[in-house]
């Protein structure tokens, strides 16, 4: 209802009493949006959207109310980070499997199917309740069932998932971890759909109304071979001495689209891929750019409209031309189009494999026991150190003494040469999962097999899911390693280059294996009362018979007949 303004005599300026520097809310915020398009070797197309929001976090000392006034940074994320005392947060929603052998390494790190959440949280008494509250809050924010990540699915990696923010260290540095602890949880069975995308888009300053985010068409996006949506929050240093920090929110969508599936040709355009064009750049963004990684041979393709800048062989790591379109300078809508000068696309017979990748599979048969084997491939000519992480749920009981690490075909290499370090946390039934972490040194040009046996647990009748015969999902194994820039992680090197950030000489690569489906033995779900009746019958039979035997004596049935005979005899003798 209408409200009258109060006379201003009620409010007087008291600027002297409350001296405060004039600071606009979005003064120190910055927002950048990027789209990277890279054709892949097998004719598919990688489209990677990245939206970065930076907010000034003040000095290294924490101030109360630091995150109270938001400009470009979304308030819901800031409140969650503040309230749960989170230092770093990574949440990824993935559907499909990233084919490392065909596509190289993804730009976004996390590629485990399902929903993966890991966070570095400040260590105090309430860290467990903070983690629980964090999963529930994120579950409500993104309409996903993250609240199922409870104690039975949470693990604390020791070697992998190091902090990536300002307090980071690519090497395992104890000092850097002071005051914070990591928590990791994954739901391999979770489906990703529009309900998760919509709240994610609402976190962007321009939402889906302007800028690159207008291309995010759910109909087209969820029709792809692989799609992954993530938010990453981490502190970054603003200068070399890290005297001031910013909080960085990176929202990414990675999808692998297949134009060959529709037309047989590799040609693509924004309208064919996404059904839309980019109307304009986001007005509040500092930079809004579309980057296309071009094939090395210029005659193979045509790219329209012509690009704004081209970066050609400037960095030693990249040997292909990169076309950059700066959207802030464009006034018309942008509809990129690339046509290839070829007939039908023919799949390459041999693709060069990435340097390190892995496959995981189950061995054995039957519902009683089985084994898990992970084959780790090292295609380089030198040995490589990797960290291996696997969190197996409690309903598969691993036997650590059956762990075998061997190199296929080279039996002479001893297990102790490969395994540098081993961390193992056994599972407790219904309480926590198993965590197996190893530091391995992979020999050059080899396939290392890590295998372990397990027993399947017989669950209670109520612990089975409604679709009990489908089985339970087991999360992927994660292999972390440092690799210099190369042909297989070209896309991420290019993105780093274009966003003008420091291109480190070595990048942290995470390789995710497949998820597994373990079918556990099921009881007959229609039988509870029958079982109770049958078992109790046997026990009652036992009890009743023994009890009666113990308290009753014997008496001969013929005694009475004999007595009667004797009586009759007496009578007869008496009478006679």
């Amino acid at each position, binding site marked *: 209802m209408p409200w009258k303004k109060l006379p201003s005599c*009620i409010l007087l300026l008291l600027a002297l009493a409350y001296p405060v520097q004039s600071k606009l*809310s979005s003064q120190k915020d910055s927002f950048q949006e990027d789209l990277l398009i890279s054709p892949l070797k097998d004719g598919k197309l990688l489209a990677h959207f990245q939206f970065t929001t930076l907010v000034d976090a003040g000095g290294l000392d924490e101030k109360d109310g630091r995150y109270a006034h938001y400009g470009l940074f979304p308030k819901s994320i800031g409140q969650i980070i503040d309230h749960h005392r989170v230092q770093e947060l990574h949440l990824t929603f993935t559907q499909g499997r990233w084919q490392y052998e065909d596509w190289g390494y993804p730009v976004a790190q996390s590629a485990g199917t399902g929903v993966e959440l890991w966070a570095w949280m400040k260590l105090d008494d309430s860290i467990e309740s903070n983690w629980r509250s964090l999963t529930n809050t994120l579950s409500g924010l993104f309409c996903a069932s993250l609240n199922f990540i409870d104690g039975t699915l949470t693990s604390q990696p020791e070697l992998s998932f190091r902090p990536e923010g300002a307090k980071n260290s690519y090497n395992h540095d104890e000092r850097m971890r002071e005051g914070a602890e990591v928590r990791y949880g994954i739901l391999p069975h979770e489906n990703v759909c529009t309900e998760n995308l919509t709240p994610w888009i609402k976190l962007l300053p321009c939402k889906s109304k302007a800028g690159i985010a207008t291309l995010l068409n759910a109909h087209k996006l969820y029709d792809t071979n692989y799609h992954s949506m993530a938010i990453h929050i981490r502190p970054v240093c603003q200068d070399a001495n890290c005297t001031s920090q910013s909080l960085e929110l990176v929202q990414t969508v990675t999808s692998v689209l297949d134009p060959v599936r529709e037309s047989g040709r590799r040609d693509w355009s924004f309208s064919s891929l996404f059904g839309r064009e980019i109307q304009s750049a986001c007005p509040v963004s500092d930079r809004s750019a579309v980057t296309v990684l071009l094939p090395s041979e210029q005659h193979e393709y045509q790219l329209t409209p012509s690009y704004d800048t081209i970066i050609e062989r400037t960095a030693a790591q990249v040997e292909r031309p990169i076309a950059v379109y700066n959207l802030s300078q464009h006034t018309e809508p942008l509809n990129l189009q690339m046509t290839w000068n070829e007939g039908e696309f023919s799949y390459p017979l041999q693709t060069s494999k990435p340097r390190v990748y892995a496959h995981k599979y189950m061995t054995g048969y039957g519902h009683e026991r089985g084994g898990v084997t992970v084959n780790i491939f090292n295609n380089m000519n030198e040995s490589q150190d990797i960290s291996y992480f696997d969190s197996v749920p409690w309903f598969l009981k691993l036997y650590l003494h059956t762990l075998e690490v061997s190199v296929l075909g080279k039996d002479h290499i001893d297990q102790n040469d490969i395994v540098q370090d081993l961390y193992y946390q056994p599972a407790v039934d219904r309480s926590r999962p198993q965590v197996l972490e190893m530091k391995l040194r992979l020999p050059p040009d080899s396939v290392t097999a890590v295998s372990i046996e397990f027993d399947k647990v017989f669950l209670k009748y109520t612990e089975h899911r409604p679709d009990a015969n489908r089985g339970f999902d087991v999360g992927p194994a994660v292999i972390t390693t440092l690799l210099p820039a190369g042909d297989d992680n070209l896309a991420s090197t290019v993105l780093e280059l274009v966003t003008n950030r420091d291109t480190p000489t070595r990048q942290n690569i995470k390789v995710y294996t497949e998820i597994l489906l373990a079918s556990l033995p099921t009881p007959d779900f229609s039988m509870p009362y029958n079982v109770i009746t049958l078992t109790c019958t046997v026990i009652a039979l036992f009890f009743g018979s023994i*009890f009666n035997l113990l308290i009753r004596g014997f008496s001969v049935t013929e005694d009475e007949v004999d007595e009667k005979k004797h009586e009759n005899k007496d009578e007869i003798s008496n009478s006679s």
Partner: protein
Amino acid sequence: MPDSTKRLVIASVWAVVLLGLPLWWKTTAVYRAQLPFSQIDSWAERKACQLSFPSTFVIHLASIADGEPQAHNRPLDFAVIQETITSHVNNRLASTNARECVEFPLHVNIQNWPITSDMKNLLHHIEPSNSKQVIAIADIEEVSSAVITAILKGERERVRSLACDSELTERSNLDGARTMKFSPTYQMTFSLMNGNPDSLQVDWDIEAAVNTYLKPFISEVSLVSNFTVDSQIQHYADLAVTPQFMERQKLPSYYYLTPQTLPHFINSAEWNLASAISSYPTINFILYIPAADKTPLRIHDDKGQPLRSNAFLIPRWGGIAIKNPPKAASGKLEFSKEDLKPFMEIFVAQLRGLIGIHDLKKTMSSLESSYEISLAPTPQTAVTVIEMDAVVKQRIAENVVNSIATLKSLAQLVMDIPNMVVLDHIRTEVQLSLDSLNQACQALQQEDYLKALQHSIHAIERSEKAFFDPTMVSMLYFPDEHKYAIYMPLFVPVSVPLIMAVIKQLKEYKKEKREQKVKAE
């Protein structure tokens, strides 16, 4: 077979069975802590403690210490005047209905206020223009009772309706519908909504504005509730309603919204107004900058005239102010602290309504007196002592009544569902809540409103904590027939021989005793 062996065997088996009985009880019984039902009932019927809201008014009568003797008043009998004023006020405010669930004791204190003659000039409103006229006692009484009546009338009505209407009747007055439900903490969010940033980008120095204009008010009101303040800027905030275009010939045309469309103004789906950490109720204040193709945007009242303030309040939710960007503006529109001052004034006024402060001017407008009465303003904190007092009393009444209602619902729920688990900590919370109610009532009688408010806040917090405890949902509901199906297969075949054995032994024992008697005779 010797009977003693048989009896020993039966006894040993029964010993184990009897050992099992308390274990059965322990493992299958529903744990229910005993709640103080009688105490809750007595509070619900308002028998436990009589709520009273005493007020004390101190009237300072000026008398010139060093002045002409005849200008001075004759010695006044303060006690008589006090009584007269009190009885006048009570007569005027006597309530019509017989049942008095709340008491309003009134104390009037008259004190002498000696002043020096050079301060006479400041007291122009007491000394009449004609210096020869003498102030009559009746005037003092009339003025005082008029003022006190005016102040107390609205306050007493509101408190009485809160405390006495046990059926929670719908409060038909606008004031009640507007006020937010009480919470010890509120979250206040200021949102700057930009309709279309393509043409105009916006930014504001909200932190400074809040610290300068809002903090004094908040710290004054922190007596009753605390506020946490945060803010955000939202771009591309589309309207859910379409404004209509008012074409005017001589004056500039504009777009307008009618009062019927205002309830739909908030586009909750697209504007990120929900709080991620919402433990407390949220009060939202929105500063809306319309898109370039919808400027200027005005709000019409129900007579079709545009409002000057261009702002409106949504009851129990928050307030909205619309700022039309200047025509020449393009690029960036930045609100400095001074630019935000008019909007903060609007927001503070809306906030006052939302937390239950009743405007003193309105209250005093019902005053009828032949004398001119002026009220001292509060330049800094935007809320006067009388207004705060009224709010405190209202909140105390609201808290007490609501916590009694919550406890009564809890007791009814527990009694209606015999299978519900009631843990010990729920009983503790209920006990603490009742204790706080008691202490609140006693503090009220002693006119210690601060303490009474504290205790009433504790009472409502604890009663809600008990009622909304997560364990209150778990019910061990198991249909009886299924229980029979579970117990019977084992226990019926096992108990039959046990019981038969005992019966047989008793029969034999009786027979033996009879035979012994016969033998003895």
